[in-house]
C-alpha cells in the first residue's frame, strides 16, 4: 500500500509551547481517524499536513512530494482537500460559486470545473440549494459546503478537522458513507471528538496526546483495549479513555 503521508520527527512550537513533539506518522489509503483531547495537537497536525504552517523540525512527505519545495508544494496542493475546524466563507457567494471558486483555486482543468462542482455539491446533498447565497444557509449546510469545496478536486489527501460538527444525525450517516467511499482511493485524515464517527468510518485510528501519538491501531483494537475499563459510555470510548490514561500515566 502506498504511503501518502510520511511524517518523521515532526515538531511544532508556538512560542514556548510545544504542540507537536517529534511525531512520527505514516498513513496510506483509507480513512484515518485522529482522536485526542483538546490541545493534543490534532488541528496543528492537520494544518501542517495541509501546508499552512511549515514544520519547525522534522521531515514531511505528502503524496510523494516535499512540501518544503515551491514546485512540489504546488503539485501537492492540487491533490489536497482541506476542511478547517472553523470554516470561513464569503456570505454573498452562492453554493455553486463558492465551490467553483475553490475548484479554480485548486487549478482544476477548466473543462472539468463545472461538472466537478455539480458532483461535489450533489455528494453533500445541496443540489437544491446550489444557487442560494451562503449567508442564507444553516450552520450544518455551511459545513456541507465546506466539505464540498474540500472534495471538489477529488483529492488524494483529504484533511478534515471536525467535519461532522453541526451536522444532523441523518447527514452524519450520509457523510460517513461518503468518507468510506473516498477512502477507498485516497487518504482521508479526520480529526474528531466523536468516537462514533471513528467507529463507523475509519479504517485506522490514532490517539494524540500532548503532541505525541499515544495509541495507533484499528477501531476494533481500540475497542478491545477498553474491555473492562470503567470510564466511558461505549466500548470505543472506554478504549479511548484507557489509552489516554495510559499515556498520561
Amino acid at each position, binding site marked *: 500500500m502506498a504511503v501518502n503521508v510520511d511524517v518523521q520527527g515532526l515538531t511544532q512550537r508556538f512560542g514556548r509551547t510545544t504542540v507537536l513533539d517529534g511525531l512520527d506518522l505514516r498513513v496510506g489509503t483509507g480513512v484515518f481517524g485522529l482522536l485526542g483531547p483538546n490541545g493534543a495537537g490534532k488541528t496543528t497536525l492537520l494544518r501542517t499536513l495541509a501546508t499552512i504552517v511549515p514544520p519547525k523540525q522534522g521531515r514531511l512527505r505528502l503524496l510523494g512530494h516535499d512540501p518544503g519545495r515551491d514546485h512540489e508544494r504546488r503539485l*501537492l*496542493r*492540487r491533490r489536497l482537500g*482541506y476542511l*478547517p475546524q472553523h*470554516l*470561513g*466563507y*464569503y456570505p454573498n457567494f452562492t453554493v455553486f*460559486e463558492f465551490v467553483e471558486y475553490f475548484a479554480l483555486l485548486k487549478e482544476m482543468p477548466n473543462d472539468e470545473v463545472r461538472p466537478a462542482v455539480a458532483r461535489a455539491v450533489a455528494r453533500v446533498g445541496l443540489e437544491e440549494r446550489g444557487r442560494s447565497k451562503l449567508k442564507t444557509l444553516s450552520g450544518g449546510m455551511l459545513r456541507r459546503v465546506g466539505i464540498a469545496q474540500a472534495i471538489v478536486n477529488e483529492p488524494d489527501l483529504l484533511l478534515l478537522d471536525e467535519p461532522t460538527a453541526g451536522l444532523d444525525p441523518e447527514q452524519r450517516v450520509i457523510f460517513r458513507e461518503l468518507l468510506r467511499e473516498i477512502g477507498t482511493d485516497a487518504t482521508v485524515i479526520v480529526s474528531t471528538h466523536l468516537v462514533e464517527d471513528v467507529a463507523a468510518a475509519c479504517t485506522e485510528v490514532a490517539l494524540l496526546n500532548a503532541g505525541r501519538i499515544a495509541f495507533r491501531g484499528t477501531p476494533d483494537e481500540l475497542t478491545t483495549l477498553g474491555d473492562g475499563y470503567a470510564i466511558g459510555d461505549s466500548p470505543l470510548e472506554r478504549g479511548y479513555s484507557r489509552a489516554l490514561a495510559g499515556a498520561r500515566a
Partner: protein
Amino acid sequence: MTGTLRLFTIEWRRSVALWFFPLLVLAGGWFSADLLLSMKVAIWANTSAHIGLAAIALAPLMGGVAAWAAGRDQRRGMRDLLATTPRPAPQRDLAALGGLALWGMLAYVAAGAYDVFVSLRNDPWGALVAEPIVVGLLAVIAGAAIGYLAGTLVPSRLVPPLVPIVLFFTMGLLNSGWFWDDPVTNLSPWTLIEDARFGNPNTVFYAHPPSLLLESLLWLAGPTGVAIAAVALYRRRSLITWGALAVSVVVAATGATTLMLAFENPNTGRGQWETRELVASTPVCIERSIPVCVHPAFEPLLAENASQIDLVIEPVLGLSGAPVRAEQLPFANGMYANGTLTIDPIFGDVEGVTLALVQDSVAPGPGWNMQYHLQPEQDVIAIWLARRIDASAFEHSYRMTFDSVAGPIRDPVQDDIDAAVARFNALAPAEQRAWLEANYADLRAGRLDMDDLP
C-alpha cells in the same frame, strides 16, 4: 475561459463594490456635473474635463471600497483555507481587484454619460478630448489599487474609511494654491484633469496644448503597478514580484519626472494658454445699440449678453470714448482704443464692462485680467451703471475688490460713494446724460474728484 478569468467573473459578480455602485455613480455624477448643470453653453473640451473630474470623487471612494474588500479574507477567517490552494495568491488578488476596478470604471462611465447628457441639452461645440477622460479612468483604477494595498497590509476596519480621506486630500492638496507654482502639482490627477487647458471655456480660442497623456499614463500606471506588486510581495516574495515592483517604480518615476518637467515647459505648464497658438474663428454677432459678438461656442448666450450690454452702455452711448462694439476676445477685458469693449459671455462680466466704461483701460493684451485702479468718483459711476441691470451680486464682488485696495479708509470712502450713487441716481435721465456728456472724458482719464459729481 481561463481559470483566472473565471475567478474574475465570480469576483466581479459578487464584489462588494456592487453594493456601493449607486453611491459611486451619484458621487461621480455630482462631482463632475455640478458646474455643467449651471452652464448655458456646452463645450466638449470642457465636458471632457468634467467627465474626468468624476475620478476625483471615485478614485478615493474606490480606494475605500478596495481596502474593505482586501481585508475580506482576514475578517471572514478564510486565510487558512486559501493557504492550502495552489493557485498563486497574486492571481486571486488580481481577480478581486479587477472585479472591483471594473465596477469603479462602470460608475465612471455612468457619471460620464450623465455629463454628456447634460451637455447635449446645450448643443455642444467642438469635440470630446480623450486626455482628461483617460486620466480620470486611470485615476479610478489607481485609487482602487492603492486602497487594495492598504487593506491588504492593514486589514483593519479603520483603514477603509481612512483611505478615501487620505487620497482625496492628497489630490486636493497637490492641486491647491500651496503647490500652484510647484511642479509636484502635476502629480495630482485633479490638476491634470482640471487644468484650464481643458476646463476653462475660453480655451476655445486656443489650440489644444501638447498632450500629456503618455506621461500621465506612465505616472498613474506606476502606482497601480507598485500597489499590485507590493500586494504580491506581501503574499510571497519571488524574483518575479520583486521585478514587477522594480519595473513599476521605474515607470512611476519616469511618469512623475516627465510630468514635473512638463510643468516647467511654457507650452504645457499650468494655465499657460497665452503662449499657445490661437485658433482662427469667425464670431457670431448681433446688432443692438452697438454690435455684440461672441465666439460661436457661446452663441446661445449672445442675445442675453447683448441685452445686458445695451442697458449698461445706454447712458454713455455716442460719447467720446464710449464703446462702439462689444466682443468676446481671448483672455482680455477692458476696452481697446478702437472702442471695442471685451466681454465674457459665460459670467456676464458686468464688473469688467462697467469698470472698462469708467476708466481709460490700459491697452489690453493677452492675460488674466486688466488691472484697474479706480478713483472713488469712477467707482460711483461704475456702480450706478451696474445697477441698471440689477447686478447686485457683481456690485458686491466689485466692492469687495475695491475694499481690499482701499484698506483703512474703506468705510468713509464707501459711505461717500453710496451717497454719491444715490444722488446721481436721483437725477433725471436728461441731467445724467448732460453730466456724462460734459465729464465722461475727464472721468475716464481720472481727472475728476468726488466734488465734481452732482
